[in-house]
């Protein structure tokens, strides 16, 4: 088949390269293998390079939020600042602490980056341009998320340092807790799109984005993915001021750099995921004529989401551990469960009715759930924080704190 290069460059080049290699007489399996290899390499490298730009963007924006200029010395608007940092990091010495478990210790940073990069395999950049259009894409993303946790816990264990270990525990506790509502929220688009394939989910958001049909799920997914990244306000897991920077305390040089890059990349990746799951991915004007435009739309939406994340980081104070826990278990998880179940029921009940009815019903349901949830949470807050405790009454203690503590320590 022939594809004009300006419409769909990726497939164009792919096809061409395919013909070329087969022309050499290589067996088909090997060719496919090679193609995947090249594709993976390109995507990974591109993502990493883009991440460098992101670091600059974020630092600049973060500076503005804090009423600073941000990096402004190296190059125009300090755009080369990240490169300078990279050089510095490259040049630094690798320290491997005494008694460290060498293999896991070195494995951890690699995993940390790899786990994030693996997600990019299923991201549809535009219609038909995805590393692998798995029919279990959503599940795959969750699975890969598990690897990230593995990396963190390895770092915590291997570097033979009790602060690193505690940091690791703290991080894992948080990540595991926030995975639950995240998965539940992720299931809502899957449910609506009747498919776990990323591209199918984007396809399904033809006329209306899921952020309209499932706002609560979008909200939860956004929050939890920020927590998964470990950004403020959930950055208690590596809070420099409270605990000495958590699990990666013993790392230096490029290994630390990889954790750092991993975090940024992860932040970027979750915004891509959010854009795909709830903002209609590559959908936008003229994508049917010129598919490659989809990549641009996706980039724009991602930028908006990422901007939100930075805004959150710049403007929110840090949660205590018990607060993060009670948020995850007492509010987000039940809410996500309720929304998931109600969505399923509603979707089943309205089978066969027009999309408009379906959408309106879903929106209404979300609003009702939101109203009830806010009422309940306010009520429980008032119960646990009496305005002035009447004389002769014991002060009300929040039961959840020691409960969670009991579970986790």
């Amino acid at each position, binding site marked *: 088949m022939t594809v004009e290069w300006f419409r769909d460059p990726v497939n164009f080049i792919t096809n061409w390269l395919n013909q070329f290699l087969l022309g050499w007489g290589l067996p088909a399996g090997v060719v496919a293998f090679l193609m995947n290899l090249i594709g993976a390499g390109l995507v990974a490298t591109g993502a990493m390079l883009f991440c460098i730009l992101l670091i600059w963007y974020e630092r600049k924006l973060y500076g503005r939020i804090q009423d600073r200029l941000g990096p402004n010395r190296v190059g125009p608007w300090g755009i080369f600042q990240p490169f300078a940092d990279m050089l510095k990091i490259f040049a630094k010495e690798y320290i491997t602490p005494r008694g460290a478990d060498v293999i896991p210790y070195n494995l951890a940073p690699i995993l940390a980056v790899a786990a994030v990069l693996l997600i990019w395999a299923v991201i549809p950049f535009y219609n038909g341009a995805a590393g692998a259009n798995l029919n*279990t894409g959503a599940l795959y993303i969750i699975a890969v998320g598990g690897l990230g946790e593995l990396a963190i*816990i390895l770092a915590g*264990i291997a570097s033979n340092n009790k602060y690193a*270990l505690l940091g690791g*525990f703290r991080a894992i506790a948080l990540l*595991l807790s926030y995975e639950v509502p995240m998965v539940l929220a992720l299931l809502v688009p899957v449910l609506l799109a009747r498919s776990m394939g990323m591209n199918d989910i984007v396809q399904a958001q033809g006329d209306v984005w899921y952020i309209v049909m499932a706002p609560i799920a979008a909200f939860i997914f956004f929050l939890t993915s920020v927590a998964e990244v470990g950004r403020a306000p959930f950055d208690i897991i590596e809070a420099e001021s409270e605990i000495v920077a958590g699990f990666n305390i013993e790392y230096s040089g490029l290994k630390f750099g990889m954790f750092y890059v991993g975090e940024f990349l992860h932040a970027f990746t979750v915004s891509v995921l959010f854009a795909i799951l709830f903002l209609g991915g590559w959908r936008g004007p003229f994508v049917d004529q010129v598919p490659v435009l989809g990549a641009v739309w996706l980039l724009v939406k991602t930028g908006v989401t990422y901007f939100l994340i930075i805004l959150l980081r710049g403007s929110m104070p840090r949660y205590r551990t018990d607060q993060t826990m009670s948020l995850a278990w007492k509010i987000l998880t039940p809410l996500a469960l309720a929304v998931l179940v109600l969505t399923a029921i509603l979707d089943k009940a309205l089978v066969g009715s027009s999309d408009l009815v379906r959408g309106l019903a879903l929106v209404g349901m979300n609003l009702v759930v939101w109203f009830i949830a806010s009422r309940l949470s306010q009520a429980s807050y008032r119960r646990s924080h009496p305005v002035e405790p009447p004389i002769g009454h014991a002060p009300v203690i929040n039961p959840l704190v020691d409960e969670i503590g*009991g579970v986790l320590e």
Partner: protein
Amino acid sequence: MNFLQVVFILTSAVTLGAAVMVVTSHRMIRAALWLVLALFGVAILFALLQAGFFAVVQVVVYIGAIAILVIFAVMLTRHAMQDEGAQVNRGWWAAVLVALGTFAGLAFLLLNWAGIGSSLGELSADEARKLIPQMGQALVSADAYVLPFEVASVLLLAALIGAIYIAREKNPQV
């Protein structure tokens, strides 16, 4: 000996090797990491069997949850790890005996099995895709496996509560 077979042989070799390390390595942390590797190998085997869904689920459940839990437990109990000294109890030779016996028995049965010579063909793409919807239907349809499914879910819930209850500190004011 085609491409897939090579992949299979490599994978299974890695898996079994990792399994051996799991049951023999001295440091529990290492054992746990080897376990992760072995589980990965199994996931790849699933992929080779064109059960991609299970490959992913394997990673989610075993590596994402179980392995992490195990490592957690290892860390929590690290004071009690006698990493040096014998990792096996006195009756280990009996264990070897039993394991080998079991393997011999299984191998014997396999070799006498009718379908021993068969080999698995390729599933077409849509056949492979059919798995998830089929299974989803089967798991919740009353004339299939809804009962086992529900029982399993109840079991999970009970296990959850039980685990929390057992593992929590019995502090006086609770």
